[in-house]
């Protein structure tokens, strides 16, 4: 069982935060005296556990079904074998085993791996032999749509990028950080100590920044459209792939206007028509922003993403952001995310 990549990255990020904060404490207050542990450090040490794992009913006749339900806490990864694979931290599902079967729930956390088993007895059958460990046959291939294109459909986790596990840029590729045009320094975002950040206003992050928030993304592909559903803020993009062109003068919008085309196995999405109210990795932009994204699914479990950013009013030339998003087979839809309970945090700073 491998760790869910996004969880690994999240934990690495916790450490990345905790260490500089500890350093800041030491710098500001001198040597620590019984130095308190960061609350998030403690959170990272909490043991995973199985709260519940059951099957109902425990005995059936051939052709009948059972409901498997489970609950875990503080997991890094959850899986059920056989027949299920990766699982959400809590869930239930209906199964119709053809013969007596023992299902095993396995949870991995900072405290190692724990398992619990339940058996469904199917009348008149004998127990299935335990499944042999899968032979190492390499990653599963990406599924294909009926038209032969790679099918990008799926729920994808937030991904790796520079500093988060992505490979370094290939020689000769575009720069990963922009060079500002002379006089465009004002487009570099400077945050004061009481700035609560890009996302605290619940405004749409735009393209490509909405891919860089820690929320899942669902892709739904048809022969004429690719639809991207961001869980974060319910943002969506409908991208025609039927040869449609951009309108001649699109109204500036948060997520822009996108059209797509296939270049071999790569979906290329061209987007214009943005407003100038979003940021990209610490830089503002003008309404002349032009983003070209490329999506590839080299294996079943991986969505490769790159975005080439251009803005002739701001940047000296195009620059590149890449990510790799992991497939989350345990989910078939993104959750609702309505920004209904946001806060004004300014009063909490005090003086």
């Amino acid at each position, binding site marked *: 069982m491998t760790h869910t990549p996004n*969880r690994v990255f*999240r934990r690495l*990020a*916790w450490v*990345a*935060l905790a260490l*500089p*904060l*500890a350093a*800041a*404490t030491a*710098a*500001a207050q001198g040597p620590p005296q019984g130095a*308190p*542990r*960061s*609350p*998030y450090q*403690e*959170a990272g040490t*909490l043991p995973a*556990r199985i*709260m519940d794992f059951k099957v109902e009913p425990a005995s059936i006749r051939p052709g009948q079904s059972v409901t498997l339900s489970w*609950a*875990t*806490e*503080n*997991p890094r990864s959850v899986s059920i074998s056989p027949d299920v694979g990766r699982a959400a*931290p*809590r869930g239930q599902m209906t199964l119709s085993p053809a013969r007596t079967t023992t299902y095993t729930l396995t949870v991995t956390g900072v405290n190692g791996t724990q398992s619990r088993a339940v058996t469904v007895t199917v009348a008149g059958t004998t127990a299935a032999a335990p499944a042999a460990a899968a032979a190492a046959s390499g990653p599963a291939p990406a599924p294909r749509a009926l038209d032969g294109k790679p099918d990008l459909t799926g729920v994808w986790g*937030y991904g790796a990028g520079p500093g*988060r596990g992505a490979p370094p840029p290939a020689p000769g590729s575009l720069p990963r950080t922009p060079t500002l045009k002379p006089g465009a320094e004002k487009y570099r975002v400077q*945050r004061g*100590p*009481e*700035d*609560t*950040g*890009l*996302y*605290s206003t*619940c405004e749409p992050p735009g393209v490509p920044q909405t891919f*860089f*928030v*820690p*929320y899942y993304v669902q892709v739904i592909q048809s022969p004429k459209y690719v639809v991207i559903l961001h*869980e974060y803020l319910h943002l969506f993009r409908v991208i025609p792939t039927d040869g449609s062109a951009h309108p001649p003068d699109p109204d500036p919008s948060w997520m822009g206007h996108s059209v797509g085309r296939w270049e071999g196995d790569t979906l290329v999405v061209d987007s214009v028509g943005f407003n100038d109210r979003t940021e990209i990795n610490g830089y503002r932009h003008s309404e002349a922003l032009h983003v070209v994204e490329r999506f590839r699914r080299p294996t079943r479990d991986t969505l490769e993403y790159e975005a080439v950013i251009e803005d002739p009013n701001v940047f000296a030339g195009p620059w590149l952001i890449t990510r790799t998003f992991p497939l989350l087979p345990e989910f078939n839809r993104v*959750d609702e*995310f309505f*920004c*209904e*309970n*946001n*806060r004004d*945090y300014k*009063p*909490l*700073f*005090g*003086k």
Partner: protein
Amino acid sequence: MRGSIGRRGFLTGLVGIAGLWQAVEAHHSTAMYDMANPKTVKGTVKRFEWTNPHAFIFIEVSEGGGPPVEWEIELMSLNHLRSYGWVRTTVKPGDVITCTGGAAKSGAPSMICAVVELPDGRKIRS
């Protein structure tokens, strides 16, 4: 380019790092909370707001013999809470819970909570 970086610049840089981290990990920075000096409060749950972009628990806390104070406990968003195993009934009104996190720098009874200890003693990320 900047010249020498003084302590203020150093700390601002760290805030920047924290901000960058927050950009990928949470909905907002934690700069309004004192994360370097963890705070633990124990109280009785009055209500649980199972909402985005953050969930909140309101607990009544009695400290130092004074009258009870209602603390506002901020948790992560629902997506993250679910990934830790939370459901909307994980805490219920009347439960006595303990929250550990960073309290508001202003002194207001408000905190962001990283660990919740439930009535039966088990701890869960938050």
